[in-house]
């Protein structure tokens, strides 16, 4: 039970930092960067559950982000729904889609499952591109309103920062509890040995599908928050490349820990921003953007060579 206490403490401290930070760091740029860290971290957290507990790689997780963003975006921008209702529906849509898709494809495992999820992600992408009457097509959907409580609108970086990090910490707390619960123990048993878990009377397939649905919901929630923050959505940020980026974040942060997703997202976002600031200074020219991606790729390789278990290190406690 010590771990539950420690986690609660950690979250309380984190929540206090989140509450206080906007006053200490007034820069909207820094806060905005941190908003994206939280959104990517939420999305990656969903995937991290699939990878950590179901032991499976999804190469189509971006599709859930897209579903969340489009359900919330279309309902509010095109149909004038209340933002919170739309966001809740977006989250539910992520879970329902995951159940519908996961039903058949979670009979697969390993590379076959990765392939099937990859296919799913690409199909969703083409639906977004071509169903333009609803989605706005490749040129996107503008005019998505910010979330609001009464007259209080989450329309500044400081407010969205608190909202996004609040959501992230809440989800971390909930999933942390889940990990420690009876269900969590069953999940770990399945992750360790599916056959042994089945022998002990655990319905492995149903559990894994449940994890996939939860992951879908969490990633869709992140997508919904993204839509209300940026106020504009188009399909291109939600393609195959983002699915891969989420896998990178999870592995970079470490599959073994829920905080790994947060670390991984922070590392990827921060690295891009650091390179943007540092490279022109280093090369004494501002025509250096081409080099940024070379350095980014090399740093990613170096990280994996020296920290193959990820930034959070270690293994998930069995």
């Amino acid at each position, binding site marked *: 039970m010590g771990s539950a206490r420690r986690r609660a403490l950690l979250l309380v401290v984190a929540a206090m930092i989140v509450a206080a930070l906007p006053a200490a760091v007034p820069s909207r740029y820094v806060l905005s960067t941190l908003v994206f860290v939280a959104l990517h971290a939420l999305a990656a957290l969903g995937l991290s559950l699939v*990878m950590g507990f179901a032991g499976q*790689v999804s190469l189509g997780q971006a599709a859930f982000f897209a579903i969340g963003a489009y359900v919330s975006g279309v309902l509010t921008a095109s149909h004038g729904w209340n933002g919170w209702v739309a966001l809740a529906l977006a989250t539910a849509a992520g879970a329902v889609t995951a159940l519908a898709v996961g039903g*058949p*494809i979670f*009979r*697969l*495992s*390993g*590379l*076959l*499952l990765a*392939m*099937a999820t*990859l*296919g*799913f992600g*690409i*199909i969703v992408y*083409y*639906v977004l*591109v*071509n169903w333009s009457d609803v989605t706005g097509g490749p040129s996107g959907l503008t005019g998505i309103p910010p979330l609001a409580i009464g007259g209080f609108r989450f329309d500044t970086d400081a407010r969205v920062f608190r909202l996004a990090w609040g959501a992230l910490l809440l989800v971390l707390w909930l999933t942390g509890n889940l990990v420690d619960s009876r269900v969590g123990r069953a999940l770990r048993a399945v992750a360790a040995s599916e056959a042994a878990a089945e022998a002990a009377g655990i319905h492995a397939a149903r559990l894994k599908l449940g994890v996939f649905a939860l992951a879908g919901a969490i990633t869709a929630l992140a997508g919904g928050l993204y839509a209300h923050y940026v106020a504009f959505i188009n399909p291109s940020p939600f393609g*195959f*490349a983002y699915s*891969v980026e989420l*896998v*990178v974040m999870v*592995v*970079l942060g470490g*599959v073994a820990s829920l905080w790994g997703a947060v670390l991984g997202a922070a590392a990827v976002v921060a690295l891009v921003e650091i390179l943007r600031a540092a490279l022109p200074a280093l090369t004494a020219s501002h025509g250096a953007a*081409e*080099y*940024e*991606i*070379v*350095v*980014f*790729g*090399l*740093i*990613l*390789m170096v*990280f*994996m*060579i020296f920290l*193959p*278990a*990820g930034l959070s290190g270690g293994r998930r406690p069995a």
Partner: protein
Amino acid sequence: MLDGVPQYLASGLVVGGIYALIGLGFVIVFSVTRIVNFAQGEFVMLGALLMVTWQARGLGTPAAFVLTVLVVAAVGAVLERVAVRPLRRASGLSVLILTIGAAIALRGAGLVVWGTDPFAVAAFSPGPPLRIAGAVVVRQGLWVLGVAAVVFALLWWFFTRTYAGTAVRACAVNPRAARLMGIRVDRVFLLAFALSGALGAVAGAVVAPITYATYDMGLMLGLKGFVAAVLGGLVSPAGAIAGGFLLGVLESMAAGLLSSAYKDAVAFIVLIAVCLAQVTGRLPWRMVEEE
């Protein structure tokens, strides 16, 4: 509408040949090392762009081709030696991310060296397209199919008729036993990566006259090649060839007969169906074995 079918089939076969050639590179690395090499598409990009560079320096197609294949094979070997080998004992996921990093870095290097503009590459044998059975086929398309056949034959010969090839296969089946038999696994890994580099370069060089050469061509071609390889089982060269043709013809038929907007979606729906058919035992051929 059905008038177009011969043309769709011909186009699909040529495009399928492209996917098949790229898929073979994935097969070589995966069958030996169990690594999915995300940088395979970037080998193709390097192959295509190096052809541009050598041709611009006045080299003829054969010399440029040989030089390109050697250089990219060396890139593959360096990738194995510098990055993959230190991670031999790490999880498959870490290695996957490593190859993603390598892919990003190589793509960036392509951008720095060649810039963003696409380049034209001279066809191996220039001339007007041919008419075969009511369909138009460009000459380079026949080169793609011919090269795919030759590469396939060479691989078959290498794996079944040479000592090195047998060693590679032994490692693929059981690395530990292979080591006990005195096979140097390190060298086999190096060989596999060098070969996959060479194969990527061959693919890039032969498809570039059709697709042109750009620094960012690797991602999409690599993805399609990977799907082709998985369709065919990811451990079998013959499977990769068949998977490539299946994917190419599917895309082409979907674009011609159903909807060009959803042609990629159609191809991936079939991919998922094939994956499911494998699990339920309704697939007449074997894909990746369950782990």
